[in-house]
């Protein structure tokens, strides 16, 4: 092991970790506001990646420019899914049911993607995917930097919306206590729908960067969703800051393990760390204690 490989691993971890943070934030936002675990998040990231793929290959639209189309598209997908399926889920087993429903949705999307795009593995192409820039004595493709900037900009605007606007305040109120939020006149139903839309919309951006930095097909989504779930549980389900920190921490750790040890142990590290942390702190790093009751 040499030090440049380690630097590479840490840089890669921080840069791609921010993209995972973006995807995980969507997941944890949906859970926090609606008590819904969206298993389809993984396949939606892949859907976002394939949308960017179609736009760039068939229409010659640049990956980043294409986001102007794909982000609203997935927002609408999210709103429709919430209105048609999620709003119908009621009763004490609501969260468990949401897992099954979103899993069913994910199977349908997986089948459709396999039919449309075949199971051959593809990767998004652009000049910034092929060209690299020097940093700390190593070379990284520009996409890592651009993806990082994109994730930071989107996360920053999401945080601005959540913490500096009136609508954001109503989302945070719903995160904290739905009944109390409804009592002070917040339309929790509308907030839920928009949150679900937002939570899904981030997968368009996440998917584009993921597709440009990894080769993918529809079944890649299983690895992705298990990582995302680990991240949000580790950060504390429903905690936005927790998801952010856990994403960067876990991806960096996974990359370092891959370099120091072997790539085989990169994914298991994720789960081992989760198991250890939860044995010591069942509510996750930043979870509310009340999450135990939920």
């Amino acid at each position, binding site marked *: 092991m040499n030090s440049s490989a380690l630097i590479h691993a840490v840089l890669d971890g921080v840069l791609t970790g921010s993209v995972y943070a973006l995807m995980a934030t969507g997941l944890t936002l949906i859970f926090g506001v609606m008590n819904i*675990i969206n298993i389809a998040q993984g396949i939606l990231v892949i859907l976002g990646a394939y949308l960017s793929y179609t736009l760039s290959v068939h229409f010659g639209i640049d990956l980043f420019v294409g986001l102007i189309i794909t982000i609203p598209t997935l927002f609408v997908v999210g709103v429709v899914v919430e209105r048609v399926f999620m709003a119908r889920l009621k009763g004490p087993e609501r969260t468990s049911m949401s897992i099954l429903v979103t899993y069913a949705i994910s199977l349908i999307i997986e089948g459709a993607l396999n039919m449309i795009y075949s199971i051959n593995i593809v990767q998004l192409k652009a000049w910034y995917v092929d060209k690299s820039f020097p940093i700390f004595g190593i070379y990284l493709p520009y996409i890592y930097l651009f993806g990082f900037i994109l994730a930071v900009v989107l996360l920053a605007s999401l945080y601005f919306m959540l913490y500096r606007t009136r609508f954001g305040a109503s989302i945070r109120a719903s995160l904290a206590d739905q009944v109390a939020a409804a009592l002070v006149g917040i339309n929790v139903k509308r907030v839920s729908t928009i949150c679900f839309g937002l939570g899904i919309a981030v997968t368009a951006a996440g998917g584009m960067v993921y597709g440009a930095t990894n080769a993918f097909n529809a079944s890649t989504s299983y690895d992705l969703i298990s990582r995302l779930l680990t991240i949000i549980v580790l950060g504390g389900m429903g905690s936005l800051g927790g998801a952010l920190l856990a994403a960067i921490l876990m991806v960096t750790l996974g990359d370092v393990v891959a370099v120091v040890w072997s790539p085989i142990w990169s994914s298991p590290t994720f789960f081992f760390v989760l198991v250890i942390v*939860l044995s010591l702190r069942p509510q996750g790093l930043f979870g509310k204690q009340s999450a*135990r009751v939920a």
Partner: protein
Amino acid sequence: MSKAKPTAWGLGLAVLILFPIIETNPAWTSIGVLTLMFMACTTSWNMFSGYSGYVSLGSAIFFGSGAYTMALVSTHAHMAGGAALFWLIPLAGLVAMVIAVPVGAIALRVRRHTFVVITIALFFVFQLLAINASFTGGAAGIYIPLIPWGASYYNVPFYYVALGMVIFATLLSAAVRRSRFGLQLLAIRDDEDRALGLGVRVTAVKLTGFTMSAFTFGMAGALYCMLQGQIYPQFVFDPTFDITVALMAFLGGFGTLLGPLLGGLILEASQQYLTQSFSNGSLYLILFGVLFLLVILFMPQGIVVAVSQWWNGRAQRRELKATRDPAAVGAHT
């Protein structure tokens, strides 16, 4: 109703016993074995998750452990292929229970929603261990001693062993349902904090239920391994197994006794049929997903509850009609 119930159960059992005698086509008996296997697993899943409300999506941990117990013991002990291997099935169940204790101790530290996610994470730990550890033979898998039975009745012994598992799992689940322990599980499902306040030792009860349910999974895994003659990590530690078992229970009726049996029967049989009819795997995924969605959205409480509600509703409507009848009204006044 109370008199009709034992008759109906007996009739169902008779049909299951007679099935391989009447239908001897191996293609059908093989569907039969897998269907029974899933019925046993779903009943066992329901005995913990259905009663306690703790939805586990890590059942494949125990299924896979059972399968690997069968594969490793039979190859290392140089056993001859044949009926003697069936004796390893209870052993596989016990191994699964031993593994369930630490798994449950970790996963049950958290409440329901997080529990679901942790079982998924723990499942992936086990899958990756099976793929990467040296003693499992890695991704290349393990071949177990060849079973020298003729192809025409190869499935039949497996069928009856699987049927035995279904009966075992059902009786166990019924016994739990009627016991004090079962009531404690149901109390946890309804309100865990109140159950705790009333003196139920919730952690011990949950862990016991979780461990008990692992036994049938281990046995089913061992049977599956024997039936297939070889195993690969991806096939026995399969994430879709986790989801399928949960779906079967929800389809039939979460927390009921009959529901998981019906769900397993309907879903596994139709799933096998669909796979055989549609060689196109993607179309099959879409169909399966749509079926899945329709069931959850239109029968969220499962077939058993939906049918009995419809039945009771019909009886009520009939009564209502009778009271509106002029003669009946006259009789009242």
